[in-house]
C-alpha cells in the first residue's frame, strides 16, 4: 500500500521562523521512507529541495504570503501596524485556495493532507476537486497562539471550516486535542493524536560557544523560541530574577525574536538583572546548535504550547530541559523537569536545583537520551500511514 498524498503546506526549512516547517519536513521525509508518494505544495517559489518529494509552488503573490510564519493577528499588527488587519495572511490563504483549483485538477491523489489554517481554504478546494478524504494536521490554533486573548474571528472561522471539512483531524498532542474539543467543537471520534518526532542529524563536535562565560564559572540558562505572548517570555525573566538572588553566576541567554523582545528587555532592566541577559537574536543551523551545547539548561515557559519540539531538540543535543506543563511535550516526555508556566517560584527552584546538584542534569540527560528514541519521525509516520490506510 503506497498512497499518493497531496500535502498542502505553508513553509519549509530553511525558510521558517516557527516549528511548522521543521515538523512538515520531518514528517514528509519519514512518510517517504515508508513508501508514501508525496506531492508537497508550497504557496510560492522557494529555494528548497527535498529528496523523493515532488514539490509544487502555487505562485501566490509574494506580498500576500509574507516573509515569516503566521503567529497571531495581534502580533502581526504590532510588527507591521497595518490596517485593516490581517489582510495579508487571509488574502494569501484565499489566493492559495484559488491557485489550488488548477493544481489539484492535475493531481492523482488518494488523500489530501493539510497543515494549519493558512492551508485550509486550499485544502477544502482540493477536496472538492478530487473528491478524496481530507486529513487536517493541527500544529497550532488561533486559540493557543493568542493565549485565548482576542483570537482573530476570521482566522477562527477559517480554522473551524477546515476542521469541519476534515475526515480526520491530527493534533500534535493531547493538550491540543483538548483545545480542539473545547474551543472548536471537533467531535472526539474524528481526532487522532500524532506526536511529533525529532531528528538527530546535527554536528556533534561544534566549536563551543560562550566560552568566556563558562571559563569564568558562569552557568548558562537558555530561552530559545519566538519571543511572543504564547511562549511566556516574561515568566522566564521573573524566574531569572529569583535565580539571580540566589546565584550570581548565571547568564540567561535569549535566542529568538518577536514582538515581546522589547518588553522582555525592559522587564529585565526594571528588575535590575539586564546585565545577566544575553540576547542573541534569531539563530539557525550550527549557531543554534552551539547555543544548545553551551547551555546548562533549556527552559520552555510557554503559556500554551501545542507540542514543543524544541524540548526534544535540546535533549538530543545533550541539554536538560524544564518545560511548562501547558505543553504537548510535557504529556509524553518523562525525563524532563516540569512546571506550571505561572509558577515562577517553582521555575526558579528547579533552575537552581539543576545548577546546584550535578547529578540532576546528568540523570536528566542520561535517561532523556534513552527515552528520546521513541520520539522519532518514523514512529509518527507509522501512525499517519495507519490513518491514511483507514481512509483510503
Amino acid at each position: 500500500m503506497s498512497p499518493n498524498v497531496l500535502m498542502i503546506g505553508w513553509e519549509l526549512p530553511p525558510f521558517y521562523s516557527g516549528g511548522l516547517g521543521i515538523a512538515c519536513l520531518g514528517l514528509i521525509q519519514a512518510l517517504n521512507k515508508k513508501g508514501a508518494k508525496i506531492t508537497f505544495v508550497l504557496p510560492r517559489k522557494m529555494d528548497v529541495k527535498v529528496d523523493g518529494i515532488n514539490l509544487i509552488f502555487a505562485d501566490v503573490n509574494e506580498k500576500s504570503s509574507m516573509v515569516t510564519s503566521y503567529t497571531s493577528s495581534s502580533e502581526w499588527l504590532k510588527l507591521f501596524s497595518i490596517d485593516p488587519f490581517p489582510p495579508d495572511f487571509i488574502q494569501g490563504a484565499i489566493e492559495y485556495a484559488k491557485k489550488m483549483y488548477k493544481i489539484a485538477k492535475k493531481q492523482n491523489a488518494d488523500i489530501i493532507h493539510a497543515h494549519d489554517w493558512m492551508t485550509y481554504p486550499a485544502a477544502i478546494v482540493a477536496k472538492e476537486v478530487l473528491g478524496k478524504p481530507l486529513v487536517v494536521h493541527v500544529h497550532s490554533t488561533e486559540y493557543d497562539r493568542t493565549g485565548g486573548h482576542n483570537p482573530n474571528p476570521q482566522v477562527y472561522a477559517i480554522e473551524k471550516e477546515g476542521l469541519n471539512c476534515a475526515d480526520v483531524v491530527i493534533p500534535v498532542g493531547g493538550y491540543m486535542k483538548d483545545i480542539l474539543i473545547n474551543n472548536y467543537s471537533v467531535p472526539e471520534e474524528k481526532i487522532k493524536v500524532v506526536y511529533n518526532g525529532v531528528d538527530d542529524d546535527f554536528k556533534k563536535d561544534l566549536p563551543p560557544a560562550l566560552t568566556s562565560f563558562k571559563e569564568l564559572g558562569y552557568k548558562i540558562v537558555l530561552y530559545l523560541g519566538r519571543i511572543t505572548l504564547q511562549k511566556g517570555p516574561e515568566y522566564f525573566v521573573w524566574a531569572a530574577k529569583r535565580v539571580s538572588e540566589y546565584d550570581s553566576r548565571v547568564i540567561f541567554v535569549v535566542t529568538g525574536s518577536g514582538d515581546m523582545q522589547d518588553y522582555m528587555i525592559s522587564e529585565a532592566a526594571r528588575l535590575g538583572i539586564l546585565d545577566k541577559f544575553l540576547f542573541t537574536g534569531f539563530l539557525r543551523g550550527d549557531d543554534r546548535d552551539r547555543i544548545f551545547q553551551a547551555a546548562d539548561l533549556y527552559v520552555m515557559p510557554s503559556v500554551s504550547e501545542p507540542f514543543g519540539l524544541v524540548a526534544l531538540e535540546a535533549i538530543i543535543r545533550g541539554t536538560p530541559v524544564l518545560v511548562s506543563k501547558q505543553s504537548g511535550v510535557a504529556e509524553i516526555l518523562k525525563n524532563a523537569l516540569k512546571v506550571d508556566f505561572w509558577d515562577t517560584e517553582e521555575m526558579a527552584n528547579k533552575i537552581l536545583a539543576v545548577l546546584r546538584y550535578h547529578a540532576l542534569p546528568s540523570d536528566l540527560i542520561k535517561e532523556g537520551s534513552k527515552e528520546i528514541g521513541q520520539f522519532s519521525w518514523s514512529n509518527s509516520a507509522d501512525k499517519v500511514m495507519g490513518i491514511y490506510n483507514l481512509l483510503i
Partner: protein
Amino acid sequence: MPSICPYFQVHQPLRIKRYRVFDVGHDHSYFDDESDSNLNNRKVLAKVAEKSYLPANELILKLLRKYPQFRVSYSFSGVILEQLEKYLPKVLSSFKKLVNTGRVEILSETYYHSLAFFYSLGEFESQVSQHREKVEKIFGVKPKVFRNTELAYSNELAKWADRKGYKAILAEGWDSFLGWRSPNFLYRPKGTNKIKLMLKNYKLSDDIAFRFSEQTWSQWPLTADKFASWVSNINGNGQVVNLFMDYETFGEHQWADKGIFEFLENLPKELIKHPDNDFVTPSEAVKRYQVMDEVDVPFIVTWADSERDLSAWVGNAIQTSAIDFIYKMENGIKNTSNKRLLNDWRRLQTSDHFYYMCTKWYSDGDVHKYFNPYESPYDAFISYMNAASDLKLRMEKSGKKSTSYA
C-alpha cells in the same frame, strides 16, 4: 507437612514536603506537609489505617481466636510506630492485642527503615538498638529474628546477625544464589555458626501481594482453596513456606472490593484442611527445622523489582549522590550532640526517599509510579537535596557554637 510462616511488613515513611531552595536556612520542618497531596504523612497514614491496618487487624484477631494453630509475624519500622503513637493510638492498641495472644512474633529491623548497614555499621547498630528499645517498650517483647530494610541481605549481614545472637534472618528466596534449591527449607548462611536463614517464597508471596487483582493473570481469580492446594503440593518437598509481604497488601495494594479480605479470612481454614499443614512464627520454625545446606550470597539481594538488587534505591546518579550526601554528614551531625539534628538526619535515611528518585520507569515503572507521591523522581530529588542542604547548614552553624539551638 509444610509449615506456613506469614510475615507482614508494616511501614510508612515520613515523606518530605515540597521543599524549595528558598526554604533552606528558614524552614527546618521537612516532614510536615499539610496539603491534600500524598506528601501529607498524617493523611496517608489515616487512609492506610482505615483501608488496611484496622480491618486487617480485626480479621487477624478473629482468625487467631478461631484457629489455635494460626500464627503471624510483623516487622514494624520505628518511624511508623512513632507516627501511630502520635496520630492513631487506636491502631497501635489493635496491634498490641494481636501480640498479646502470644502467637504473633515481632521482628527486629532498623528504626528508620534505612539502608545504613551498607553505609555505616556504627549507625546501623544504633538504629537497630533504638528499634529494639521501642519494640520492647510498646509490645513488651524482645525480637529474636532479624530482617533488614527491603529484605536487603548478604553474607556480611548474616554474619553480623549471627554475632549478635539472632536465631534467624530473613531474605528473598532468589534463584541467582539458590539455583536448583528450594526456598522452602532453612539454610545456613556462609560464614556463620548458629543462625538460620529463612527465604521468601516469592512465587507464592507475589501471587497474593502483586497478582491477586490482576485479571490478565491466568490464575485469576485467586481463591483460598486454590492457593491452599498450591501450598499443599509442596508436601514432601519443603518444610516451611515463607509468605513475606507488605501488610498494606490487605486493603491498600489489593482492594477490599476485589476480595482480598475474604481470601485472607478463608486461607487458614483451607490450609489446615490438609492435616500435614500448620502455621509457624520464624522462632518456631527455627526450633523445629534443621538447616539443609549452606547458602552463599556474596552480593546484596533485596525483594524489589526484577533485578532483586539495590538498584531501585541507588541505581542512578541522583540516588547515589543523595545517599552519599547524607552519610557524609555522619561525623558532623554526631559531633553536634544535638538530638533534633540527629533525628532529622536519621529520618532522611529512610529508604523510601531514595525509592522515589528511581528512574527505572519502563520495566518496573508501574510499581514505582504507584508508590511515588512526587510528580517525578526528579521532583523527589530536588526536595530531598534542598532539605538535606538545610540540615547541613544547621549542622555547620551548630558546630560553630558551643551550645546548639538548631
